[in-house]
């Protein structure tokens, strides 16, 4: 019981401190709600938006983009990372493009992709997938390179086939590192989805932010949406952590 309290109380105190600082800033600066709404105002607006259903279609749209984009991006990144780790040729040919693609801000790329593929689920998922791809590919590459060569030699002494080596030795050995990349990837996926939604479209939490800032001019709603996005990020991160804990427990 005490252990549990120790785990819960410090984060709660920190969170209360954060809210208090926020509120103090509002009072001291005497900002109007359309510049900086206080936490109470935002909380109120958040509850309202939940109750009247403002959030739900946008949330569902964003989660759908994240699900498709993250799955596709990670699924493409893991084999790529493996090939990068095991083939010097592939590494030499592909690395410059990978790094270049990562160096170009997604913010600059997003409007182009929207131009080519429209503003629907397709282009948004492509953007999410692109954002997820790099960290997952790189962490897979590093993890596979880090697989103990002595284990590989041991497996070779028992005439391991290429397929067996990958499935029975390399993947389980590299799994903790790969899941670490997924952890980075999932948080970037949320950012990617919001950025993609800014380029246009009807629905999505990014669209809602634009609406709240623009035509609706409802700054408390903008803040409430940011809170929701943060909650989505934390929840998804937590989900990956759960998967990771299972994987690590098994290994």
């Amino acid at each position, binding site marked *: 019981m005490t252990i549990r309290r120790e785990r819960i109380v410090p984060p709660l105190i920190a969170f209360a401190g954060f809210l208090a600082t926020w509120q103090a800033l509002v009072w001291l600066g005497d900002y109007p709600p359309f510049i900086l709404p206080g936490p109470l105002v935002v909380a109120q607006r958040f509850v309202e938006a939940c109750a009247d259903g403002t959030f739900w279609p946008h949330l569902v749209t964003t989660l759908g983009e994240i699900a498709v984009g993250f799955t596709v991006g990670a699924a493409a990144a893991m084999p790529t990372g493996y090939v990068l780790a095991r083939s010097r040729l592939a590494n030499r040919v592909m690395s410059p493009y990978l790094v270049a693609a990562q160096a170009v801000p997604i913010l600059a790329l997003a409007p182009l992709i929207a131009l080519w593929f429209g503003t629907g689920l397709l282009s948004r998922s492509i953007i999410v997938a692109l954002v997820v791809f790099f960290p997952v590919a790189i962490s897979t590459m590093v993890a596979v390179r880090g697989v103990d060569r*002595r*284990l590989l*030699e*041991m*497996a*070779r*002494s*028992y*005439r*391991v*086939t290429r397929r*067996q080596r990958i499935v*029975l*030795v390399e993947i*389980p*050995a590299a799994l903790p590192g790969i899941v670490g990349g997924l952890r980075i990837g999932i948080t970037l996926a949320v950012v990617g989805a919001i950025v993609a939604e800014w380029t246009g479209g009807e629905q999505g939490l990014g669209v809602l932010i634009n609406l709240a800032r623009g035509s609706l001019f409802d700054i408390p709603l903008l803040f409430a949406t940011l809170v929701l996005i943060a909650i989505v990020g934390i929840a998804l991160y937590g989900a990956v952590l759960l998967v990771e804990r299972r994987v690590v427990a*098994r*290994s």
Partner: protein
Amino acid sequence: MSDAQPAAPAIRLAGLRFGFAVAGRPVEVLGGIDLDVERQSVIALVGPNGCGKSTLLRVIAGLLHPRDGTVEVEGRPVGGPDPRVGLVFQEPRLLPWRTALTNVAFPLELAGQPRTEREARSHALLGLVGLRDWAGARPAELSGGMRQRLAIARALALEPSVLLLDEPFSALDSLTRERFNVELLRLWERIGTTIVLVTHSISEAIFLADRVVVLSPRPAVVAADVPIDLPRPRRMADLDAAVVSRTAAEIRAQLGGATDDAFAVATGDVGRHDEPEDEPE
């Protein structure tokens, strides 16, 4: 142990040469090794550090290809990793995410054996190395000695006719090591495979082996081949015999005193930690 003399020796090495390149310059490691190992015998390889003992084991196991010469096991050449040869590395090299049982079953799984068969066989192998009750344990939960026993069980999974051991107990403290040597002999008496082991310890070599093969510094050739005339089954107490001192002196002369425990042998400090319960019956 002396059955009717079989046609081909367990291992025949003929003109074995091996080399590799360091910074573009060729280094010759094995300089033409000729060696016959009789079936069901124990051979200890000793030699100065870095002379290529481990390399020789890898060539016999088919993990390295000789530049010249041949390796034959029971009359048939070894062209690559071979189920007739089991290799135990210096470290246990277990898969940390697997249990003791599934680690032992690993070679059987690679060979495509069905699950029920390989599990039954693996349980038997665990029993053979005294780990019957540890089937579900992960390597991290086992002691260093247990892990190395597990590695030996795994090497025996495909029923090799030759077992190669590369300083298998070098990471263990000397007391545990002596106990493990006794256990290894007991195991060998039961399964009757041919054993070739690399060691730095002259006393260990004498205690375990029928012949101690002394390798020269690189490029390694067989510098001496010393028969050990001690009766079997052996006991730790045997190491006090005069013949042991003479043999140790002979091996040491060939080595030029290049091993860890040359001093211990010279001062008669070997075999003092005799544990009666560990003697083979």
